[in-house]
């Protein structure tokens, strides 16, 4: 490995990154499964439960992502390697900010969608607390609710599938940096590496 170009991400940033990443991957798998399973009577009851879980994790992701956005704004980022061409830097910046947009827009559009739904199904946060629907949509008539549910659903779906593309790009870029360019772009975001002490001047800055 080449010399570390810069400091590692903070422990908080690393923790939030991987926690949210795991949840997003799980959410994508759950979302793809449950939207099909809800249509089949054999799996419908289980799918209803999965929707509740999906909605609960959505709230968690929204909260953690807002926290992470705040952390990002108030903390210094490790810089990019000097050898990186300008277009790669720009692409990385755009991808990262798109991820922030996605992490917030996905739960919000999901929340809007279930709030607009004429079914009026409650959102139970891991079974113990009811999450309110967004009130502005409550006054709509049935047709209005159907229309807005569909619109938010399309947005949610568009962002989700866009997110899968973004995720592939992000993972592909990280692996390229690690395996081909052989810089420390990936390593500085990996958890549990304080034991390696590979030229890192800080674990916590």
């Amino acid at each position: 490995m080449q010399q570390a170009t810069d400091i590692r991400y903070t422990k908080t940033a690393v923790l939030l990154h991987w926690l949210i990443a795991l949840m997003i991957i799980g959410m994508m798998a759950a979302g793809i499964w449950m939207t099909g399973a809800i249509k089949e009577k054999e799996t419908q009851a289980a799918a209803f439960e999965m929707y509740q879980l999906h909605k609960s994790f959505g709230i968690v992701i929204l909260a953690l992502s807002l926290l992470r956005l705040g952390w990002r704004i108030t903390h210094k980022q490790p810089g990019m390697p000097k050898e990186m061409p300008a277009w790669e830097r720009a692409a990385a910046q755009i991808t990262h900010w798109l991820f922030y947009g996605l992490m917030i827009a996905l739960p919000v559009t999901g929340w809007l969608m279930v709030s607009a739904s004429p079914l009026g199904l409650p959102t139970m946060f891991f079974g113990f607390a009811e999450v309110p629907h967004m009130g502005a949509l409550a006054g709509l008539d049935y047709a209005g609710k159907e229309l807005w549910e569909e619109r938010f659903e399309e947005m949610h779906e568009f962002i989700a599938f866009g997110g899968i593309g973004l995720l592939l790009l992000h993972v592909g870029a990280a692996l390229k940096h690690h395996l081909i360019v052989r810089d420390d772009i990936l390593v500085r975001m990996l958890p549990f590496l304080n034991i390696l002490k590979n030229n890192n001047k800080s674990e916590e800055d």
Partner: protein
Amino acid sequence: MISTKQFFVGAAIAFSTFSGAASASNSVAAPSGIYAMDPTHASLTWKVNHFGLSNYTARFTKFDVKLNLDVDVIENSSVTATIDPASVRTDYTGDVDFDDEIANGDKFLNASVFPKIEFVSRSVEKTGDKTALIHGEMTMLGVTKPVTLSATLNGAMAAHPYAKVPAVGFHAEGTIKRSEFGFDHLVPYVGDDVSFVIEAEFIKAE
């Protein structure tokens, strides 16, 4: 004096001749003709998946079926059925009148605008001694779609003991996709497939 053996052989021949004669023209005891449904011994129940938890079951109480039965060439038979959608009955209607909602709601059967559900057979396909497929067209909510009923002759009598006229009894079942008729409210949480069963007795019309 005939031997025991001769007696049994004779009896066997007599029995087989008798039963052979009875089944020579057809296996149905009742004659061909126009049959009217006996509403006191008829039911039309339907089932729809609810949330993947149950096959919710309800019925229509006002419906009529007319049968033109050809017992010799079953393929020549025909049937028409008419259902009053306002007669839908659930077992427990809840705090709001659920029967009224299903019957008259504009997302449900909208009975004031579409006062009839109709089925008209187009062809009958024999599948066994007592079974047939009835291919026809059903009209609901102003939309006509092909529907096939699977029918079984439960039994037939040359003379019903009370009515003293020929009687037949049928079981018929089928499944429709309600969304094909524009009835897609709450699909898929409340199933798209609606299965139904008709159990009905018929009395030969005059």
